[in-house]
């Protein structure tokens, strides 16, 4: 059984050698640039995965996107520009940071709004 399984495995593994995979991850030589690149990666969505950032994903598209992030950071773009480029290309969905716009005003106001409502209710209670 085991030898059969291993033979099966090798048969399955073989095609991945034939197909040229995307270039492997090469960290940027400047550690602070690499750190900036990684920060951007952790906030971009892997489009072929289920709710994973490209920093966490092993998918080949995520790897290609990581390479893109590194290239852009190395070329001197700041993290916000890199993110904007991805949002421009793939839509808002690609960024785990929701955009700050009119249609997300409620979302961003929520924490203070809820606390304020709660405080107002509590204050009213104390006044009674």
């Amino acid at each position, binding site marked *: 059984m*085991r030898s059969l*399984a*291993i033979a*099966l*495995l*090798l048969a*399955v*593994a073989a095609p*991945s*050698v034939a197909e*040229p*995979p995307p*270039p*492997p*991850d*090469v*960290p940027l030589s400047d550690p602070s640039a690499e750190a900036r690149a*990684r920060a951007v990666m*952790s*906030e971009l*969505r892997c489009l072929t995965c*289920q*709710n*994973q*950032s490209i920093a*966490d*994903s*092993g998918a*080949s598209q995520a790897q290609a996107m990581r390479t893109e992030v590194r290239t852009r950071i190395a070329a001197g773009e700041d993290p916000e520009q890199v993110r904007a480029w991805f949002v421009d290309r793939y*839509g*808002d*969905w*690609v*960024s*785990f*940071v*929701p*955009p700050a716009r009119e*249609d*997300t005003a*409620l*979302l961003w106001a*929520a*924490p203070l709004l*809820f*606390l304020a409502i*709660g*405080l107002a209710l*509590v204050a009213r*209670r*104390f006044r009674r």
Partner: protein
Amino acid sequence: MIPELGHFALWLAAMAALAQAFAPTVGLWRNRDDLADLAVPTALAQGLFTGLAFVALAYAFIISDFSVKLVAANSHSMKPDMYRFTGVWANHEGSLLLWVLVMALAGVAVALAPATLGSRFRARVLSVQGFVSLGFFAFLLFASNPFERLIPAPTEGVGLNPLLQDPGLAFHPPLLYAGYVGLSVAFAFAVAGMLENKVGPQWARATRPWIAGAWALLTLGIALGSYWAYYELGWGGWWFWDPVENAALMPWIAATALLHSIAVVMKRDALRAWTLLLAVAAFSLSMMGTFIVRSGLLTSVHAFAVDPTRGLFLMLLMALYIGGALTIYALAAGRVAEGRQFALVSRETSLVANNLLLSAMLGVILLGTLYPMALEAMGGAQISVGPPYFNRTIVPMLLVAAVLMGIAPWLGWKRSATGHLARRLLPASIATAAAAVVAVLLLDVRGIGAILGFAAAAWLGAASITILVRRGLTFNSAGMALAHLGVAVSILGATASGALQREALVALRVGDSVQMGPWRAELMDVRPVAGPNWTAIEATLYVQRNGRPVGTVTPQSRMFIAPAQETTESGRTGWRMGEVYAVLGKPDGSGRWQVHLWVKPLVRLIWIGGLLMALGGVVALGGRVRALALRRRKLVTFAEPQAA
């Protein structure tokens, strides 16, 4: 034959639930004791028949009876024995059967536990539980029959999603369900309390053990789920603010708030209406969590059902229960007085602040989880609300809560003096300053969030230990202090594993090594291995720290045979309370393998903190049980004349 018997038992259980729901309701309304007294036997019958139905389904799974559609679709004869059994609830129908089983067993527990609030109240609680069960039985029998046959029977099953073939997942759903169901009991107590006009300290005393127990189970379930996601999904994280994770977290937060507010009802007979609302909210959120996960609104390993009629059924069920409970609340809230007043500086106020913060967190998580769906449904943009949003909004509130949690246990009820606080909190203050200095100077932490995290953990940890050491400990305060200590430990683990993490994503040949600060990992070997129903490529990495061996990690890339699916198995080795974590990626075609390595200091503290929290919940429960036994004797003398 056995599956048909199981199906029949399920119908009998549903009939018992029907009787349990209506007989006591009519009995209490018409003052017919014979009908009201049916509550207990029908609850026992419901438990028995649901148990039989569950056993029948488990039997079909264990013997791999592929003539049962559910077994054929979710099991495989080559699957290891343990997963053939846990596979019972690793699918939509089976997980619902587990849900009704746990619910029926909770009914049995209520029926057999001493009725501290009188038999009339118990009949009311059981009838509410009967109504809740009834909906789930209807859903099972009409829209999700687990015993449906498949003719002709296939010779082999499709198999179980490999990600679910894991010991962590064997216990995660039962723990969560037991927690949700515990909250359904609290819900039943709340509704019964409103209908019987019994909401007060005695009611709180009877309800609290259910909440504490449910809370402890939910804590364990969530901690286990997080641990499973950490080691099984191979992404190096432990919480991603995924909608499914949030769906489980929201009832937990509501239960946490409820656990604190019911203490106020119990001790001071205040915050009654608010506590009732929380009890309704906690169970509603459990149902909503199940609904979100089960309806196919979300795609994830949890979403088994993508059948829209099922989603609609669940939504109707949820609307019915939540709407019904809120209507009863609206009608009864006027009769339920808020209770006694208290001064601004008091234990009550600190618990109100706790509830305020928890409610705000709950609101933010609810909004953040539903916002993308709502926006898209209204024809707006497709956005992602991910970890950056939740971390920026929830973490600051959590830090404020941690500061309050250090102070609150030292405040007195009603109106508190403040003179003793400086002395009591001296150890915590010293620990906080020390932690901040160590973080900045020795550990070279620069992020303000991380420094605050270390400081908050030290503050809350030291303050909680001070309570454990200095006070004349009751079970109650020991449980509280343990749970708070658990929160501190989890904050420490989360902060340290994030701020002090080292990470490398590299392509290595056998013999190559990678250096991460004092850490060094060498790729020793890559070879094929095989398990019972999978084969894998396994890498062996030898890990050293400052030249001293730490251990080897063996990440795998696994190929399951049935269903044919590839998974990555992380390789991990412990170092003190931290871990070295490795994931094997793909080969690059020239003999190099992509390897993702993390060093995560203190990461295990995250889940150890969860265990401490749950332990705290259980310890507090122990205190209550003892107190209940004492009180029962007193209660008899009070309750008898009323009943007569």
